[in-house]
């Protein structure tokens, strides 16, 4: 397994644009077009299927945010919806044979840091500047180093959880593909036409694992990431 490939380098600088970023842009464009398509000709009483689907998704996110964070945090719904859609699609692109966007630590760490900034902002807002630093000394003063570590561990564990699940699926899938390729070569059922190699043994078996690692893990981890964001932010205001 290799890291994401460098797609191109911005001329004049040495800033490398990786595969991950390009896939991220494609997803942004796809979601933008999807939103335009789903919200055309909105009616008060939905007539088209696309409006029903859009309302279902918006209601789902609104209910999720209100259910976990309370109705005073309803303004968070767009942010949570963005995280959810971006993370789900970022993991599901692997079904198209592309590299998962979330299998790059830079992406997940960036999202986790955004959550960390939100948490810290709300802690400052509710406790005040002095109160924020005082809160590390609770319940007893000498426990402060542990509190600092657990504060830093929050974004780290969120980032590594999403990254680890998707990257782990990728590693296992690639191991399986190479094992099945070796098996087909050993059984002489591997055919090479030009640069294209067909391994008969790897035709159907990986599909079962792909359902778990790509579809299930991708959706569940995206849900958990947005859920944890909501839980941490709402607990920061207490």
């Amino acid at each position: 397994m290799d890291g994401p490939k460098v797609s191109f380098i911005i001329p004049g600088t040495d800033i490398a644009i990786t595969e991950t970023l390009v896939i991220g842009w494609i997803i942004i464009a796809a979601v933008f077009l999807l939103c335009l398509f789903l919200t055309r000709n909105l009616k008060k009483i939905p007539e088209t299927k696309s409006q029903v689907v859009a309302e279902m998704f918006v209601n789902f996110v609104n209910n999720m945010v209100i259910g976990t964070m309370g109705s005073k945090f309803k303004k968070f719904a767009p942010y949570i919806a963005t995280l959810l859609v971006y993370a789900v699609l970022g993991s599901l692109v692997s079904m198209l044979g592309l590299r998962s966007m979330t299998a790059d630590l830079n992406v997940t760490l960036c999202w986790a840091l955004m959550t960390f900034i939100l948490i810290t902002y709300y802690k400052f807002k509710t406790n005040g500047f002095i109160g924020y630093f005082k809160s590390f000394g609770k319940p007893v003063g000498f426990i402060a180093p542990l509190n600092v570590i657990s504060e830093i561990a929050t974004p780290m564990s969120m980032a590594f959880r999403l990254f680890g699940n998707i990257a782990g699926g990728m590693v296992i899938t690639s191991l399986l593909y190479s094992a099945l390729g070796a098996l087909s070569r050993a059984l002489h059922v591997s055919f090479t036409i030009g640069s294209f190699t067909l391994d008969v043994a790897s035709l159907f078996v990986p599909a079962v694992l792909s359902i778990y690692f790509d579809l299930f893990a991708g959706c569940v981890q995206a849900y958990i990431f947005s859920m944890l964001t909501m839980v941490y932010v709402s607990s920061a205001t207490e």
Partner: protein
Amino acid sequence: MAISNEAFVLGCSAIGAGAAMIAGIGPGIGEGYAVGKTIEAIARQPEAQGDCTRTMFIGVAMSESTGIYAFVVALILLFANPFLKKL
């Protein structure tokens, strides 16, 4: 046959990566307990299914962290080996 320093470090790293993944046992058992208890709770009170499932997912994600840490250690040993630079 003499083993080169590099080969020795790489082999030991591979063993270390495999040993690190033994940590997968812990989250496996823990998540099994969490899901089992959730099913018990849902069977007793089916109308609370939504709340139970939501809480279970958070708990499962929390207990999974330890396994993920072990996986990250294994990944670092396999793909970004820090010991090779020290040779």
